[in-house]
């Protein structure tokens, strides 16, 4: 059985002040919204007692790095500090620094179902080799408000999780529909559930 725990972390960007983890990330003030959010979330999750660390990470963000790409282009395509954030996997770097984590990571894209695809892959990577798999990403909520999210997948043979999310193939083919189904199943966007049918492949 695969147990999934979802966590979200709301933040604003640009940052309102210096983050407490500033010493861990060189030139933290140059991070883009996604990188800043994952770093801030990593710190928050660590501080809030989240005990586990991932053995494998999948990055899954709607829109890839389009936001940072457009910013670099709009400003004349001449800023090196903007250019370095124009790849969707770069956002993991600050996360790695704040978490002191290194390991295997894949940045996946399949809009409009990037998280759906990542959930499928994550459920198949969970194994004795990779006991804990995380899916990480960010959502823009508009007006400078952002949300980082984490899906933590683990094998759990011992304990039955009370809530189950059953998804038939084709039922949740977009990230929006997936979030909707999660909210319906567990009451909100954060919680723990058993993933009953992980083969959601689009």
């Amino acid at each position, binding site marked *: 059985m695969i147990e999934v725990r979802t966590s979200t972390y709301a933040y604003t960007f640009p940052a309102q002040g210096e983050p407490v983890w500033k010493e861990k990330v060189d030139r933290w003030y140059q991070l883009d919204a996604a990188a800043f959010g994952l770093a801030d979330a990593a710190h928050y999750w660590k501080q809030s007692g989240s005990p586990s660390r991932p053995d494998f990470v999948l990055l899954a963000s709607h829109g890839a790095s389009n936001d940072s790409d*457009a910013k670099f282009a709009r400003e004349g395509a001449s800023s090196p500090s903007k250019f370095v954030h124009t790849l969707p996997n770069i956002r993991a770097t600050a996360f*790695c620094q704040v978490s002191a984590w290194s390991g295997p990571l894949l940045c996946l894209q399949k809009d409009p179902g990037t998280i759906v695809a990542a959930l499928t892959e994550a459920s*198949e990577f969970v194994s004795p080799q990779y006991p804990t798999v995380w899916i990480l990403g960010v959502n823009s909520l508009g007006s400078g408000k952002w949300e980082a999210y984490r899906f933590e997948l683990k094998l759990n043979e011992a304990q039955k999780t009370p809530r189950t999310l059953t998804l038939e193939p084709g039922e949740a083919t977009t990230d929006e529909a997936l979030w909707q189904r999660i909210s319906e199943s567990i009451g909100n966007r954060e919680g723990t559930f058993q993933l009953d049918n992980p083969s959601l492949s689009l």
Partner: protein
Amino acid sequence: MSPIRSKNSISLAGYSCSTAAGRGTEAFWQGLQQGQDHGKLAVTSDWKVTPKAEVTTCAFPLNRSVSMKERLVSELLHCFSEINFQPQGNYGVIFASSKGCLEDVVWSGTPEELKSDPLTPCLTEFLDRAGLKPKRSLVVSNSCASSHSALFLAGHWLDKQIVDDVLVIAADGVGAFVVNGFQCLGALSTTRCRPFAANRDGLRLGEAVGALWLSRQERSLRLLGIGLDIEGHAVTRSSTSGGSLKKALAASGASDVGPDIVIAHGTGTLANDVVEDNAFASLFAAPSPWVTCTKWSIGHTLGASGLMDIIAAAEILRTGKTFRIASTEVADPSFRSRYLTMTASEEITKVPQEILVSSLGFGGVHAAARFGVAR
């Protein structure tokens, strides 16, 4: 660390590429054999932002008035037609790219156009036009190590028997976005890309697409192992020690004995080449395996570059021939590994049986894949 060392063999059942050398693997391979540099002065007159200085790139020899998506997909279809893809059962398709068709939308794209990633449309268009209906399809975008990362996922799919065959396609093009970006980073060579030379001064961008058919069917060319490691040293630079790359090399199954040949990422930048040399020197017992690379010929083709190097590895195993780093006379004397430069005196007498291909990417991505011939 993340070894995929298949219990079941994974074969390279077919491959093809298009590069600045022309369409087909043969054009690429002959260019490497003959020491051809495919760089040409880039025509930038129709670019949205003109680079601050003239720039030489290794671009496809085709009509540049078409969209980036059309350029990449039409070349992908050509590669696909060459490999005679005949899966035996369920199959998957993985697209490896760093920027896909971003160039088409980034300059004047509407918020709606910029809502979705610029990579999936290339994959979707390719699948539609190739008439493919895979059990699973996905984009992997791990910067310049995207091809190796896609191979890592493909290895997982095959090892877990999720599918029986995987088609890995890779594509990246060159336009105003990436050229201006790398230029403002100061990463572009103003002369010629000279990997592992003491006077190296940067990389040269190139475009390429490739297709690689991996299969559980028995064939002579095999994927022996693949490793992937991401470190958080810095946004762009890898740690100079090469520690993360060494982890990836080891995870691929490479040992101190070493393979017969290493095809390095070999960008020709001051920092990257040091990282690779340190990783090779710390893993392999002296004398190290001979190290060569391809970017001096076809440029740095970003997310597709790993697949080009894998195709070069397959050609070495198929033909028994190697190639030198034709733009580099002598290796940097501070380097400890052995590089197949133009003046490297030792001839390789043993027919290569095992090749290691390394790859690095922004974001601290390090990967390595080992290939061999079935015995």
